[in-house]
């Protein structure tokens, strides 16, 4: 399955992936409408320190601890990608306790949010990867 992989040494720390992610999942028609005056809550995040930076998002584990530990069944594997049904999620944070990558975060709606590889939004392909100016994240089979 295609996944998002990180090339740490190419990362500029520009945070564009975070903005593209927030836009892709906003349901809005333009980046300006989605992001202007909003505090963004992206599902990919940049860690940075002392000139090192890299993006972290869900690894779509083949053996996902978040799915196994979810108390409501909100997290499932759909065609290899780990998806969340926010309607079922009760916000217990057991998945935050379980994920070794820190890849899930709380969302404004009280439920949990995570990268779903843009499979459920209008783009169908990870927009963060398309927006990265330096190929520091790629979407490919490895």
């Amino acid at each position, binding site marked *: 399955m295609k*996944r998002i*992989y*990180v*090339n*740490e040494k190419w990362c500029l720390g520009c945070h564009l992936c975070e903005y593209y992610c927030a836009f892709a999942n906003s349901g809005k028609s333009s980046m300006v409408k989605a992001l202007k005056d909003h505090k963004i809550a992206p599902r990919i995040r940049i*860690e*940075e*320190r002392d000139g*090192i930076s*890299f*993006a*972290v998002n869900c*690894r*779509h*584990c*083949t*053996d*996902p*601890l978040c799915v*196994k*530990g979810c*108390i*409501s*069944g909100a997290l499932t594997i759909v065609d290899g990608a780990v998806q969340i049904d926010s*309607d*079922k999620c*009760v*916000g*217990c*944070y*057991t*998945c*935050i*306790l*379980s*994920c*070794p*990558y*820190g890849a*899930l*975060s709380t969302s404004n709606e009280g439920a949990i949010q995570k990268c779903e590889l843009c499979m459920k939004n209008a783009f169908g392909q990870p927009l963060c990867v398309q927006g990265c100016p330096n190929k520091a994240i790629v979407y490919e089979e*490895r």
Partner: protein
Amino acid sequence: MNYVIIGNGTAAVGTIEGIRAVDREGPITVISEEPYHVYGRPLISYLLLGKTTEEKMLQYRPADFYEKNGVKTLLGRRALKVDPTAKAVHLEDGASVPYDRLCICTGSRPFVPPMEGLDAVEDKTSFMTLDDAKHLDAMLGEHNDKRVLIIGAGLIGLKCAEGIYQRVRELTVIDLAPRILPNVLTEAPASILQKHIESKGVRFLLGDSVQRFAPHTAHLQSGGAVDFDVLVVAVGVRPNTELAAGAGCEVERGILTDARSATTVPDIYAAGDCTVSHDIAADTDRILAILPNAYMQGETAGRCMAGDDAVFDKAIPMNASGFMGLHMITAGSYDGETYLEQDEAHYKLLVTRDNRLVGFIMIGDVDRAGIYTSLIRDRVPLDSIDFDLIREKPQLMAFSRAERAKKLGGIHG
């Protein structure tokens, strides 16, 4: 191979999914006393709180889960005895179900200590099952006018409190222990959480117990009394081990299993709340009655029953719970060297021992806590990472570049 599972909770689901990861064909039969399609047991408090519905609860696995997995269900039926020689499970209604491989996933039941006068209390319940939640819901009624007494300030008692606090006139929680969540929290974080819950109108009576009941009054050891309309007994749980013991499996407080989830009797496996786990954080054997553990043990059992070589040897106590808006995540053991960070809204304690992270408690900000959990679970030597960065917050920056390349660049768990 003909598989039989007793119980229909998370451990059973793990077993089914584990079997089917290896064997798509062999028939599976699930026998369970509760008459429902599998549901997430921890959701019963969220049901009362209105954060989920019965319909959604029952979608812990989709409606076609059994059908898709070739599972025959015998729901609302109780297993009485396992005959390991004839390899059959005998049910209360006289039926008997033959097996080649059996998994016992019978969970636990509420422990109700003998208390004088308890029989005379009419409106009372435990808090373990969907039926308990419905019963409590009916007793509370629609008018927010009931006085409720909960015995037990452990996770189940407090989750119950969270579920109903907006629907009662008065809510009191009593526990013999001097602090809330005695099994999960140390003193300081317990008192932070207690203050928060008290601010929502819940009253705690700690270090006290009920000496005797009158129908609507609890007379306390300390001399006082609490009047109530509805009583919830959430003192603790006891593993359902009788079937396993009767079949000759070695049982201590729970059923003994190895890392493959096999019991000491051939072709009988066991998983979930009814078993004893090896807690690698404290290096002791204990019952870990938590849902993720039930799944892992079940999945391991299922795979092994179907002939695979799976092991689950990374069990640790861990818990994520929110109480009335304040979140807490805890894991591992608190015995070791401690690192504490605390301000008004947040509390974070890290515990290390022998160059390993062995436990943590986070209240308030729980962002990315799973990175800490993974350090405990994988027993990562702390001198192989940047511990100052890990102390600051859970972050992958603390790992070496090479380790990060593995984590983010292609090898995934």
